[in-house]
Structures are given as C-alpha cells and as structure tokens.
C-alpha cells in the first residue's frame, strides 16, 4: 500500500505522492488487474474480442473462401459442405466475407478510438491546465461539436472522404474526442492543484512537460476506460455508415455493408446472410462494453479498498 494509485484523487490527502515524479503504478495496478480478472463478464468480453481478432486476421490465412470472383453458378446457397456459411447473390463465400468485413470493422474501430482519445486527451489536458478564458473557450468548442448530431456530420463528411479504412477512422475519430476531452479536463482540474504538479512546476517543468509527463499519465485510468467504449461506438458507427451505403467502397467491405440489403434478403429467406454478420457486430460491441464496465469497476475498487 506504499504507492497510491495515481490516476485518482486520494481520499487520504496525507498519503498523497509529493514528489515531482510519480513512481510506476504497482499495488494499485495489481489490485485493479486482480479485480478485473475476477470479473467473469470481463473475461468473457476479452475472450470474445480475442476470438474475433484471431478470426478476422488469422482466419483468412487458414480458410480461403472465394470473396473476389463472382461465381454465378453458386449464388445464394445455404450453408453446406464447402460453404460453411453459404454464399451471397454474387456467389461469394459468406464466411470469407465475414472475416474480411471484420478486419475493416476492427481496424476502423480501434484506429478511430485511438485518434479520438488522442485528440480528446490533449484537448482536455490543455484546457484543464490553462483554465480561465482559454478553458471556457475550448469547452464551448466541445459543446458546439457535441450539439451536432454525430451520425449526420459523419455521413456528410464520409460521402466525400470515407472510402478507405484510414479515411473512415479519421472521420469517426475527429468527431468522437468530445466525451474523452470533457473527462480528461475534469481529471486535470483536480490533478493540477495537487502537490506533485506544484513541485514539478517549481522544478521548472514547462506546460508541455507537465501535460505529457504528469497530467496525462495520471489521468490514464479515465482514458483507458474510454478507449473501450469508443471502440464500441466506432464499430457501431462504421456499421451504420456501411448499412446506409456511405461506408467503405468496394472491394473493401465491412459488416454494415453486408447487411445493407438485409430487408430484401430476409424476405427471400436467406437468413445466413443476416444473422452471422449481425451477431458478430453485437458480440464485438458487447465485448467492448463489458471490458469497459469491468475496467471502470476495477478502478473504482482500487479507490475503495485503499
């Protein structure tokens, strides 16, 4: 218990770290990890996510489905030997497409989440540290961005620039940094009055060093929790864009694309073209939410037990 978890306001001020540098997180992190591992739902979440990462990125190396050449002799086949998940109206192999689509969804999901968190982290830390009129101006900008319905603005930009994985990640990331920015700012507001920040200042740290070395590492708990929720949101956003027909362009596909003529496909009774894809989206998003909830709980526990 010698080390106090740095990312949270200490309940017991007298035992707060007073040095300029904060030592590596030890007992706090271990405590949080143990708590996290005890959470069965979180372990299930990690398992699901790992399964899908392996399925989408290692799967295509093992399983070679036809996903690029139209095969009009084998269209809309139900699952059978040779086609474990059936085929599409183009004769593509649905299992192969599911892997390819998952790659795009996961790539965009993680990339967008990290871009969003990165911007939000810097924005929030700078606003919180600066305070005063700079802070309120920066936070009004956040208010403005938050007031524009996310899907509308992403759709508008994606029509012109959303054809690639990188483009989509940038667009979604550029409009999901707002909540992290608010949370990080809140953390920084409490952190900046703490002694170790004053000590670092006295020792001559500039603003960028304060932010990079002291404030952001100490706000990391909030940031990590948010990454997982942002991944979930980004995957849902990509799926929505793909479903509406404004996502990745052929031949890159994502799970949303694959469902885009779902109503028609369903009235024909081609259930294998809908449920595996839909269930994959739900499972991955749910896994991210489960991990995020568990991380948040375990960080809370760290606070409570101390």
């Amino acid at each position, binding site marked *: 218990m010698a080390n106090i978890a740095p990312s949270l306001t200490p309940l017991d001020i007298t035992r707060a770290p007073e040095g300029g540098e904060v030592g590596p997180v030890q007992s706090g992190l271990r405590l949080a990890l143990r708590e996290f591992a005890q959470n069965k739902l979180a372990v299930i979440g990690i398992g699901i996510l790992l399964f899908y990462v392996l399925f989408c990125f290692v799967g295509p190396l093992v399983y070679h489905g036809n996903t690029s050449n139209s095969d009009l002799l084998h269209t809309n086949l139900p699952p059978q030997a040779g086609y474990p998940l059936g085929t599409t109206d183009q004769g593509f192999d649905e299992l192969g497409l599911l892997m390819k689509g998952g790659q795009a969804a996961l790539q965009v999901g993680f990339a967008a989440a990290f871009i969003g968190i990165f911007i939000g982290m810097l924005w929030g830390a700078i606003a919180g540290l600066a305070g005063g009129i700079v802070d309120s101006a920066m936070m009004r900008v956040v208010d403005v961005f938050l007031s524009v319905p996310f899907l509308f603005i992403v759709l508008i930009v994606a029509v012109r620039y959303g054809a690639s994985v990188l483009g989509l990640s940038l667009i979604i990331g550029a409009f999901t940094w707002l909540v992290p920015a608010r949370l990080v700012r809140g953390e920084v507001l409490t952190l900046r009055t703490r002694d170790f920040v004053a000590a670092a200042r006295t020792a001559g740290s500039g603003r960028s060093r304060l932010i990079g070395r002291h404030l952001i590492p100490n706000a990391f708990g909030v940031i990590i929790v948010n990454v997982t929720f942002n991944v979930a949101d980004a995957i849902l956003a990509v799926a929505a864009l793909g479903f509406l027909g404004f996502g990745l362009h052929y031949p890159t596909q994502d799970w*949303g694309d694959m469902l885009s003529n779902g109503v028609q496909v369903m009235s024909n009774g081609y259930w294998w073209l809908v449920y595996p894809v839909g269930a994959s989206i739900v499972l991955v998003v749910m896994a991210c939410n489960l991990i995020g909830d568990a991380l948040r709980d375990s960080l809370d526990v760290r606070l409570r037990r101390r």
Partner: protein
Amino acid sequence: MGREKGRSVSAYLIRRILTSLIVVLGVSIFVFLLLHLIYPSPAQDILGPKATQAAVNSWNKQHGYDRPWLLQYLSYMNRLIHGDLGYSYKANQSVVALFQERVARSAYLSGISLVLAVLIAIPLGIYQAVKRNSIGDNVVTSFAFITYAMPVFFLALILIQVFALSFPIFSFEASQSLSIWHVMTDWHSMTLPIATLTLISVAGFSRYMRSTSIDTLAQDYIKAARAKGLPERLVLTRHLLRNACLPMVTLIGLSIPFLLSGNLITESVFNYPGLGLLFLQSLNNVDYNALLAYTLAGAILTVTGNFVADIALTVADPRIRLA
C-alpha cells in the same frame, strides 16, 4: 429571501439562455463552414458534368457562391431568420416546403417512441432496483445489454423477420400515406418502426433508471418513510419515483442526437418518407441546402433539448436551483 431566490433563478436563466445562443451560433458557423469546405458550390451538380468552367463561374456569380464564405454565411443566416432555408435544386422546390411535407411524420415517429421508451423504462428500472439481483432483474439487464450493443438496423431486421415474415402480423414497410392522420392510425405498418426506435432507447434509459433508483433507495428519506410505516407502494410512488426520475430529465435531454440518428436509420430500413430519409436522399443527390438545413435543425433541437432539460430540472429540484 424569496425574492433573492427568484432573482438568482432568473440570473441563472439568462446566463443559460446566453450560453445556449452562443452554442447555436457556433454550431451554425461550424456546420456551414464544414459543408462549404466539402461542397463549395452546387453549380457543377446542377449544370451537369458537361458544363464548362465559364458556365459554372457565371452560375456561381449569379447565385453568390463566388463570395468569401463569411459573406455567404451572413447572407444565409439573414435568410434563415426570415424563414428562408434556400432552394433544393434536386427536388425543385424550396427546402421549407420540402420539410413541411415531412416534418410531422418524423416528429410523430420520434415523439411517440421517446414517450413510450420513457414510460417503459421508468417502471422497468424501478422494478429492477427493487428486485435487485433477482432472476427478473438479471433477465432484463442481459436483454438491455444486448439491445444496447445492437445496431438499430439489425434490431429492425430481427423485428421484421419475426413480426412481418415468420408471423405476418405487421407490415415490413412503414406507412406511405401523405396524411399524418392516416399514418397515426395505421398500426399495421407503424408498429415495427415505432417498436424499433422505442426498444433502442429503452435499453439505455432502463440501465440508467436502475442505477439511479438503487442510489435513491439507499437514501435516508426512504429509510425514514419505511420506518414510519408507509406502505411500500407509497414509498415507491411518492418517494422513490419522483426522486429517481430527476436525473432521467437530463438523460432525455441528452438523448436527442441519438434519437435523431436512430430516426434516420429506422426511416431508411422501413422506407418511411420523413426527414431522415430526405437527408439520405439529399446525401446521394448532393442536395446542399437540404443537408445544411436538416443538420442545423438537428443541432438546434439538441441544444434546445439540453436547455429545456436543465430548466426543467432546476424547476423540479430546489436543491440544485442555485448551483
């Protein structure tokens, strides 16, 4: 004391109105600038791909698209204040007329879904809080968790499969009637879109309601009410319900952007000719003025929603009135 309180409430109101106006102004600049950067001028789309550069230039000059963006923004805002949202070159009518045809349909779909979601989520959350960790609670929690992770369109597809294809009770297409009265009475075709949007909102609302109810149940006034022998039914309706609903007011205010996004996707799946479908068609047609107007309308609705929620909360809860 009373007058002082009144004064500080009105000071709060004025401050809140001012910040909302600033945000609305910021939103209008942001949306206008963004659209301007992406689609500098609709000339090429209107005149066709074969139009010469000279023709495009003269069209731009004629319609004011050659001016600096700030001037264009100011003249757009000027027209906006006078109720002119510009002209939709694709639909060949004014954007205002285009919206008037459709706004009632979208408002009906979103409005009734929001009301239903709140009416379902509040008792559900209270039930879960009271019967915490029971089988019923766990079933509802799992259900809410899955729905929460579900894309709107996938939920819609499942509902269509079950209630329109496997058991053909409802229609898989929303009402196409031009009369809002027909739409409102057409349960056969409106149940599934409404159910989709309602269920998606219930998932988030009930989770939140459950946790605020659990917090409220731990308060001393609940213990006091129980200790003085108040029947449990009255404890729940008089003390728990009122207090646990307060944070819901904020949540509902904040949920407007999600509702609008959900509305967009639901209208697309069920082919319901409202504003969401218009937005998607405008995206395909690069119908600049319609996109701008609907995005602005969505943003203003969001700001208004937050504002109304804040004010409602201030009126309902004296404890936070002066915070």
